[in-house]
C-alpha cells in the first residue's frame, strides 16, 4: 500500500490533534487509490470527541472491531472503529488498559453503534460506558458475558503447552530429589 494523505483535510487535522500524546497516525491506500486513514487515539475517552467531529462531516459508522494481540481467549486490548465518508475509510483505534478499561458509548453520535457495542459487550466482555440499551444481542441472557473469551481452541489445548508444563515439573522435581 502506498502512503498518501487525501480526503477532507479539516477532519483529518481535527482527528490528528487527538493522537498527539502517545497516539499514532497513518495513511494508506489500496491499489485502486481508495484511501484509509488510521488514528490511534491517546485514550478511549477521546473517542467521543472524534465521533463528534466525524458526525459533523456526516460520516457513517461501518463497523467496530475488538481484538487482542495475543491468544484468542485473552482479554481484548484494542477496539477499532471504522467510519466512512466521501469514499474514504477512517479507522479510530483505542487501547484498553488498567487506566481506561472501558470505552464510552458513541450511540449519541451514531445510532447504528448500538448493535456493534452490544455485540462486543456480550461476546468479548468489553465495558461500554453509558450504553443506553445494554440488552443481549445474540446470546441468551443465561450465558455468561464475554463468552468467547472463555473459548479455548483445540489447537491451543493440543500444542504441547500442558505437556511442557508437566515435563518442566518433572525436571524440577528430579532436581529436588538429587
Amino acid at each position, binding site marked *: 500500500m502506498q502512503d498518501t494523505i487525501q480526503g477532507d483535510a479539516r477532519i483529518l487535522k481535527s482527528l490528528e490533534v487527538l493522537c498527539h500524546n502517545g497516539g499514532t497516525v497513518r495513511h494508506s491506500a489500496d491499489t485502486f487509490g481508495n484511501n484509509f486513514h488510521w488514528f490511534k487515539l491517546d485514550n478511549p475517552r477521546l473517542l467521543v470527541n472524534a465521533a463528534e467531529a466525524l458526525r459533523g462531516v*456526516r460520516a457513517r*459508522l*461501518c463497523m467496530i472491531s475488538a481484538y487482542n494481540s495475543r491468544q*484468542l481467549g485473552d482479554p481484548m486490548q484494542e477496539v477499532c472503529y471504522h467510519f466512512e465518508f466521501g469514499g474514504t475509510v477512517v479507522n479510530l483505534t483505542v487501547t484498553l488498559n488498567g487506566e481506561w478499561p472501558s470505552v464510552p458509548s458513541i450511540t449519541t453520535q451514531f445510532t*447504528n453503534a448500538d448493535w456493534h457495542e452490544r455485540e462486543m459487550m456480550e461476546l468479548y466482555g468489553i465495558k461500554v460506558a453509558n450504553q443506553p440499551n445494554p440488552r443481549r444481542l445474540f446470546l441468551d441472557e443465561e450465558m455468561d458475558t464475554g463468552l468467547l473469551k472463555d*473459548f479455548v481452541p483445540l489447537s491451543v489445548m493440543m500444542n504441547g503447552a500442558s505437556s511442557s508444563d508437566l515435563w518442566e515439573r518433572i525436571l524440577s522435581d528430579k532436581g529436588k530429589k538429587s
Partner: protein
Amino acid sequence: MNTGNSTFTIPLGPVHVALEEPVYFRLTVEGETIRDVNLTSGHVHRGMEAMAMQRNLLQNATLVERVCSLCSNSHSFTYCMAVENVTGLVIPPRARFLRSLAEEIKRVASHLFNTAIQAHIIGFKSLFMHTMEVREMMQDVKETVYGNRMNLGQNCIGGVKCDLTPELFTYILGMLEKVEPAVEELREVFATNSMVVGRTKGLGLLPKEDALRLGVVGPVARGSGINVDVRKASPYAAYPDLKFNVITNDGCCAYSRTRVRLDEIFESISMIRQCCRMTPDGPTKAYLPQITVNEACARTEAPRGEVFYFIRTDGTDVPQRLKWRVPSYMNWEALGVMMRDCKVADVALITNSIDPCVSCTER
C-alpha cells in the same frame, strides 16, 4: 399478553412460515396496528470469526464463502481484497474483470430471488414461479461457468480460480439475451400489477432522515433516496472501468426498494456484457508475498449493500483478527421504523423488503 391500556404484545417467530430464517419479533400492537417492534436474533450464531482466527489465510477464503449463500461470492471477494490490501498484493487485470463478472452474475440471481419471495409472501404464486424460473437461467449460468449454483469458489487470494474461455463469454452473452427481456416483463408486472402495487406501495416507510440516522446500506438506502454504492464511491476490481448508474428511488417504501432491485438488474446485465467484451488477456492470479505485521480494511457492494472486512496479521499465515460486517447487520434496526403503524399481516412483507440474511448477520 396485555401490557396495559389497549396495547398487546404478540410474539412472532423465530420459526414462522413467512420468514425464511429464524428471527424473533416481539410486536406491541394496538388492535391490528403495530406500535413498537423488538427484535431478538442469535438463533444461528456460529462463532465464525473465532473459527477464522484458527485457520490460515488460504483456508479462510473457503470459510468466509460459507457465511451466507446468496452473498457467498461477496464474502470471498471482500476477504481476498482485505488480504491483498494487508500484504500489498496487486491482482492481474484479467482477474479484476473476472471478479466483477462473477459478482454481477450473483447480484442478478440474488435480486430475482428477493423479488420472487416478495411475490410468494403476497400470495401471487404464478408470479413467484415465473420469477424463480427467470432466476433459474442465472443459476444455469453459474453452474455452467463455475460448476456450482451458489458457492462459486471463484475468488482466491491474488485473483480468481476459474478462467473463462471465449466460448463461455459467448454463452453468457447468449443467456443474457434471454434473461433481459424476461426481467423487463417482470419489472412491468411488479411496477403495475394492482395486487403487487396495492400490497407494497407506501408500505414499510423508511424516510431518508431515518435511513441516514440508522446508516442503512444497499437497496434499502437507495430505496430511500440515498445515493450510496461502494462500486461508485470507492471503485475496486473492474468497476473503475465499467459504465453503470447508481439506482435510487425516493419512494422510501417496500415498492421503491423492489424497483431499485429490479432496475439494478439491468445495470448488472450491462456490466456483465461489458466484462465479457472488455476482459483483457493475461494471467488470472498473482502469488502471495511475505506476510508482515499489518492491518487493513476492504469493502465491496454485495447485493444487499456494503460488506466490510478488517484484518490484522502478525507475520504468520493465521490472521490475528478477522472481522466482518454484513449489510443486513445495518438494516435490521430499520424494521423498527418501517413496521411502526403497519398491520401485523404486513410484517413478513416488510421484513422481506430489506432482503434480510440472518446467517450473515449472526455469523
